[in-house]
């Protein structure tokens, strides 16, 4: 009996394993992330050591919100 090797995109890559097992607590919704993004990014632009655990965790777990936060931070750096 022969076996068929899984297609590459059917295999769990190390990156997929990491993404699936990412600890995204404390919970923060995308809507709350959007609400807080302006104040969070301004605080980060003023002080790169600024920490907001819920925002940091959300941005690690949500690539779309993270992309948008990165853009906002770039805009603030360009503006100031």
């Amino acid at each position, binding site marked *: 009996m022969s076996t068929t090797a*899984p297609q590459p*995109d*059917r*295999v*769990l*890559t*190390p990156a*997929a*394993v990491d*993404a*699936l*097992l*990412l*600890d*995204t*607590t*404390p*919970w923060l*919704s*995308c*809507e709350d992330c*959007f609400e807080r*993004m*302006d*104040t969070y*990014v*301004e605080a980060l632009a003023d002080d790169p050591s600024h920490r907001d655990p819920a925002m940091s965790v959300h941005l690690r*777990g*949500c*690539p*779309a919100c993270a*992309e*948008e936060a*990165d*853009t*906002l931070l*770039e*805009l*603030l750096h*360009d*503006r100031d």
Partner: protein
Amino acid sequence: MGTLNRDDPTSLGLSGEGPRPVRIGHDEPEDWVAALSEPGAAQDAAMRRLHALMVRAAAHQIWRMRAALADASPHAVDDLANQAADEAMTALLGKLHTFEGRSRFSTWAFKFAILQAATEVRRIQWQHREVELRDLEVEAPAHDGPDHAAEAGELAAALTEAMRTALTPHQRRVAIALLVDGVPIDVLADRLGSTRGALYKTVHDARVRLRAALVATGHLTDTSPTPTTPAGTP
């Protein structure tokens, strides 16, 4: 809306090097909310100024994501940025009463333009691609190599099993689409008639269940606090 010269890419700040830095001028209203709320010449001027800021922010986002676009010429980016700014203006003006002054108004405004522009680029990127909602087809990689590869393979196998046993079919499909297949969350939300927030909640719950399952089987050390989701969150 707006008075930009669409034939001149530099009106957007676009050049071969990307968007120009955003400069906040001295013609900014001191009170944006009042200026935008009270009909008259000041409102018209504030709307034009705000739209220009929104176009710049949208263009910056689109420029960052230009590799996803078939046509990333200055003219195409200009058109897309203006469309995104128009949509974002509508969204912002509908929420103007919620601005509390905790950040600068321009920062608050930028995020609406950025969200709209990024969502639109992802939509365009995927408009001719099918989104496959597959269920139990994920497989762990074979592992017959060095020890660390074998460990990684064992973890992936345990995770695959946990996906079968600990997740609901909906959680599995959403987690696979977003985290394995790399479908953007707003594209998946659009295809499913859902929202970004609802899908993120689904994948958050899936992650909690998967971590708990692997802690139970000894494949993961629980070093995190007990997951708590406040009641009433979407």
